[in-house]
């Protein structure tokens, strides 16, 4: 009896790890490790493997990562949100214009941006759910609106010169190591800043929401099969609206993070960033058809997308444009893997699935 329980327990642990639904996440992690290994072999001697290089990938992409968290949730519900970069730009503009031109406290500006961002997200979610407008068009409109308002505020780039804000932007923690009982900074100097912490915090929050709250499970259910979710009595409308609202919040946080990064606000900031964010989520194993996606995958999606420019910088001879092509190729690779996984699992239970879909 005891032995059996033990066996089952061990089995269930193995099962949990080998669960087929994690294949995509493993693929992302695997490809990331492979590329990292490649980089280490090629450019290890010029510092690719240092902590500094590794942390810089975080620092340069933290703002995208923040938005990728919200985007992952939206994609899991089967939607899409094209307005994220525009809302982020608007946030940056609020802070810059509000503080530099109007002299408002930057944190008040951030609070205002949050209200606007969450409000817009909720509004778009409501339009998608109640008016049945495709998410693509709805959020495209949202993007135009946000960009439009942004350039109406100012078409010029506005610098941010607030002491408190700059202090935040400059705040960092150096990575130390213990040498002969004394803490010294590692060489070359490596640090993490507020953006990285914010990214990690939002990522963990997202993972917690998805994994351990009713809201998170409803998100998966809605994305898996909206009709079923409705029949099972789940609050579909509320879930969808909340997801877009949360994504609006993430967009605002991306804007704050980007403002901390560049210390200015500009109407054209982060142009096309929404696609970077979507790409990160997709190579992280999130399906655009909805229902599947994990924060861990997205995390490595962000890493994977950030390691390419790093590699190109280290190479030194390649034009940065190879980065775009490499990203495209990565996307293609992961779509291919997804396709194979989906076909494989459909084939495995081919006939059964066929019979079910037969009669409606």
């Amino acid at each position, binding site marked *: 009896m005891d032995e059996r329980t033990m066996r089952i327990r061990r089995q269930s642990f193995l099962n949990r790890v080998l669960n087929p639904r994690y294949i995509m996440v493993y693929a992302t992690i695997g490809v990331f490790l492979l590329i990292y290994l490649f980089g280490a072999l090629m450019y290890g001697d010029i510092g690719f493997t240092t902590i500094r290089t590794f942390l810089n990938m975080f620092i340069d992409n933290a703002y995208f990562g923040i938005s990728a968290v919200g985007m992952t949730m939206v994609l899991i519900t089967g939607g899409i949100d094209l307005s994220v970069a525009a809302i982020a730009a608007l946030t940056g503009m609020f802070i810059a214009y509000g503080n530099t031109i109007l002299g408002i406290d930057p944190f008040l500006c951030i609070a205002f941006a949050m209200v606007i961002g969450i409000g817009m997200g909720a509004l778009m979610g409501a339009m998608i759910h109640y008016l049945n407008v495709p998410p693509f068009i709805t959020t495209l409109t949202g993007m135009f609106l946000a960009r439009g308002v942004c350039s109406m505020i100012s078409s010029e780039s506005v610098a941010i010169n607030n002491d408190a804000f700059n202090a935040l932007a400059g705040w960092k923690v150096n990575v130390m190591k213990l040498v002969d009982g004394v803490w010294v900074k590692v060489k070359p100097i490596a640090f993490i800043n507020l953006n990285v912490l914010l990214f990690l915090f939002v990522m963990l929050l997202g993972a917690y929401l998805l994994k351990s709250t009713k809201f998170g*499970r409803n998100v998966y259910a809605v994305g*898996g099969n909206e009709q079923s979710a409705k*029949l*099972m009595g789940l609050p579909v409308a509320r879930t969808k609206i909340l997801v877009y609202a949360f994504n609006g919040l993430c967009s605002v946080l991306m804007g704050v993070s980007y403002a901390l990064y560049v210390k200015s606000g500009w109407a054209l900031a982060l142009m096309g960033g929404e696609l970077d964010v979507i790409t990160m989520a997709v190579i992280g194993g999130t399906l655009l058809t909805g229902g599947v996606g994990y924060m861990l995958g997205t995390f490595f999606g962000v890493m994977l997308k950030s390691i390419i420019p790093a590699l190109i910088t280290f190479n030194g001879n390649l034009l940065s444009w190879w980065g775009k092509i490499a990203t495209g190729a990565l996307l293609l690779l992961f779509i291919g893997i997804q396709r194979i996984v989906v076909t494989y699992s459909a084939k495995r*239970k081919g006939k059964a699935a066929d019979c079910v879909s037969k009669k409606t």
Partner: protein
Amino acid sequence: MPDKRILEMKGIEIQFPGVKALDKVDFDLIAGEVHALLGENGAGKSTLIKCLTGVHHMDAGKIIYDGKEITPTSPQAAINMGISTVFQEINLCQNLTVAENIFVGRLPMKRRHRIDWKGINNRASELLKRFNIHIDVTRPLDYFSTGIQQMVSIARAVDIKAKILILDEPTSSLDENEVERLFDVVRELKKSGMGIIFITHFLDQAFVISDRLTVLRNGRLVGDFYARNISKIELVRQMIGKDMEQIFALKRPTVAADATNMLDVESLGIASKVADVSFTLKTGELIGFAGLLGSGRTETAEMIFGVTRAEHGTIKIHDREVRIHSPLDAINQQMAFCPEDRKRDGIIGDLSVRENISLVVQSRRGIFNPMSIKEQAELADQYIQLLGIATPDAEKKVGELSGGNQQKVILARWMATQPDLLILDEPTRGIDVGAKAEIQRLMLKMCAEGVSVIFISSELDEILRCANRVIVMRDRCKAGELPGESSRQEDILHVIAEGTATGEEA
């Protein structure tokens, strides 16, 4: 067993646009019994259930549940009252784990806002163990077969402390073992005093599991019977009934003695759907396909027409073997096919009558040999007149016509290609009596002109009146072949019910 009625439905009436879906139907359910609800498509079974679960709202009648009169407003409200439904299509989320599917919407929480995963998984395991199912509940649902999925949805329904469990065609995609397992569960539940309503097309299963059987036909109650007091044949007769329409003077097609083989089908099949079907069809002959829904009639037709690709077997046309991999191949072989599901496979709703009628002719002519609008209009007008399609003009969207007229448009689409072989899958279902007779007449007229016809129908009258030969399908195989002229309904019913024929053996 004490006779405790937990549900009484009295004089239920529902009016749909143009059709009385339910007409003064009574139904009742006793705690601890399995009550089967039978009837062909469109008889009103689903409508009755949807009325009970608050999807449709009744125009007249009352529902007494547990001694109180209720008016269910939504599926959710019904569930809360203790009326759970398991549908034929599995209404669960394939991407969630088994355990989650059972509990989502009422997940047990730990410290208020954290999901208690361990608890969920343990409880789900326990619950399924009661059904004698031992699976890893942490796997996503789509990892498991349909049978297991069906059990999971029952587990979900049962765990909501239901007093009434409605099973709407739960077995249509299960294999024998899975059905057996399901029935074990149902017996278990029955013992615990739950009232179970079981809707099915499979008579055998209804007899195995049910205590009582209620038969509906055309929205009316035919009667309710104790399973032990009624024979299968009698039951089938009750379900199918005599057609109420006046019988037109229909003349069975005469097949010339020297008629050549038009179609020769040999052991055509797909492993999971239809087992080796063989038959021949002569020029100008009409073969009827009888059998209950899901018996493999439609699947056979779809294989012949290339909608689904047969895994084995051969098709010969005029004694020449042909390869049919897509509907286009079939069309090029002068075949035509009116599919069973008009909305899904037939009409293209937003296109006009003209475009719908000329679609197949056009697809055979190819993209670069278009018909002018005038040609299309002439073709359309010709068939609008010939078939008496009731439409103000040929430019009306097909989606806005009535069911019968939509069916005629599809018929016109295929007649316009002047086929040698016409496959009609339930062409008369869901349309009014007049249109029905007209479509039958047209079919026979085409036979007289030398077209061979395969006619699939659930209405035996219809088949017996028109067909030269009748092929009876049962359980995804050909169960028998009867001559059309000398057979009586009883003969066919016998084959459908018992699977044995006077002719060949399945």
